[in-house]
């Protein structure tokens, strides 16, 4: 092949490729639209599609299941909202179990409203309080694991615990732990109502994974709804529990 034919071939190749056009990416311009309350009108076709679901939902959500005599506020280390919440978990879990359940705990972050207002309590409000489909587990913990669990709670300023528990936070540790009025025995075995989220190691409770546990199959939220409804049927309001189960 001579130098000239090679040059001609290269030239031809260049010509051929330059004949076909390609799509060059030239520019990208971004923008965002924030959907504010008064931003865009409602698409009536879409609203009509939502309507039957909304009606069905509202019917359930607007049902009043009980009455709250005064505002229950969420707080650390103990509060009226968290006291009530964990007592419900203990009562409802005990009702499902043949053996004695010593205490119940709940992760602080899992309670999703800052307060339960005074007045009628709807199913919808309890959904807001507990939107997650967390399930109750019954777990067997050695006293030493209970100490570990309460230490973690103490580190983060105190978590919701049932009425059967009391301790004092000292330098970020749980001290003077009592269960049902008796000092914690680190060698004994305790039975606890613990939501699956924590029982499966959530919120850094990794040491709980693998401990003997039983899945009750009952949603935390359903326990709350049932408890409020049952009390209401017996003419009882939501209890206001002001004691400091955890002290600082």
């Amino acid at each position, binding site marked *: 092949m001579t130098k000239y034919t090679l040059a001609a071939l290269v030239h031809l190749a260049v010509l051929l*490729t*330059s*004949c*076909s*056009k*390609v*799509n*060059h*990416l*030239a*520019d*990208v*311009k*971004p*923008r*965002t*639209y*924030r*959907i*504010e*309350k008064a*931003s*865009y*009108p*409602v*698409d*009536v*076709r*879409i*609203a009509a*599609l*939502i309507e039957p*679901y*909304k009606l*069905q*939902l509202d019917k*359930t*959500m607007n049902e009043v299941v009980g009455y709250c005599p005064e505002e229950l506020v969420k707080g650390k280390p103990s509060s009226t909202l968290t006291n009530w919440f964990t007592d419900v978990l203990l009562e409802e879990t005990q009702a499902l179990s043949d053996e004695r359940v010593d205490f119940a705990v709940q992760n602080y972050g899992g309670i999703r409203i800052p307060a339960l207002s005074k007045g009628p309590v709807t199913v*919808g409000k309890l*959904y807001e309080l507990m*939107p997650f*489909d967390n399930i109750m587990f019954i777990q067997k913990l050695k006293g030493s694991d209970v100490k570990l669990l309460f230490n973690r709670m103490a580190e983060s300023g105190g978590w919701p615990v049932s009425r059967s528990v009391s301790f004092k936070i000292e330098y970020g540790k749980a001290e003077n732990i009592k269960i049902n009025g008796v000092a914690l025995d680190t060698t004994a075995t305790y039975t606890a109502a613990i939501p*699956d989220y924590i029982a*499966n190691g959530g919120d850094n409770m990794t040491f709980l994974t693998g401990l003997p546990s039983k899945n009750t199959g009952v949603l935390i939220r359903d326990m709350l709804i049932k408890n409020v409804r049952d009390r209401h049927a017996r003419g009882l309001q939501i209890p206001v529990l002001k004691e400091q189960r955890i002290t600082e």
Partner: protein
Amino acid sequence: MNRRQFIIHSSYSGLLLSTGMFPLMASSSEPEIGRLTILHTNDVHSRIEPFPMDGGKNEGLGGVAKRATLIQRIREEQKNVLLLDAGDIFQGTPYFNFFGGELEMKLMSQLGYDAATIGNHDFDAGVEGLEKQLVHANFPLLVTNYDFSDTAMNGKTRPYKIFRKGGLKIGVFGVGIELSGLVPEKLYRGTVYSDPVAAAQKWAQTLRYEEKCDFVICLSHLGYKYDEQKVSDRVLAQTTSEIDLIIGGHTHTFMKEPERLANKDGKPVLVNQVGWAGIVLGRLDVYFEKNKKGTCVTCKNLLVKPA
């Protein structure tokens, strides 16, 4: 002369549609400009209605019926629209608890979503629960790194889809986050997760070279970025090639504008995410110039920020 490989301009200043300013470079006719409008959401989390007026930080924001109007208006102005979602369609309001995601899927179909990927919360009713809702979706779920062979979802997802819009060929594929430790095992049982970087590289290559796509989009539910060593959209962007745009989710990050990064070949890749709950709709107008190979009059000099 511009290379096919371009450098993203650091500011998105206006596109010069006229070639009049470049008489020496201009061919006999003005270049043909194509435009693709990408609309996107992520982590809508069953937020069908706007947030309730309860004094909360997000009160009154969002709502599918308003988003529908906005999307319709954009469609009236723009010919070539792609509407995409980066996962976590489910969980967050009682609509999901009560109806299992049926309404979410019906609404996205009605809004004309072209594709979505799968987020971790889309497993919240189990693999079977997700599969049950697919009948209400007229758009595909795209994912390249979940193997559903041993589950009810077998054959119900696809790795990618190609869209032809105004002479452009757009390839869209999806990647999902590692489920172990994030989703209860019994909910995703049978789903086999594999490395999203390897999967993304493989399918982006396929879309670019075998399918000859002009633009390659990755729908990702990996999350924007992490402090710890964990694969994220930023990691994905910088360790792969042939992806032009990553539309992300999971970390609920409200980004003012897309981040521009250099991929492993030094070519530009954009990463974007628009928060959560349908509070914001993202839009990217992508301009293409149809011209000879190696010639582009309107191409921006895209400067890639060092990572």
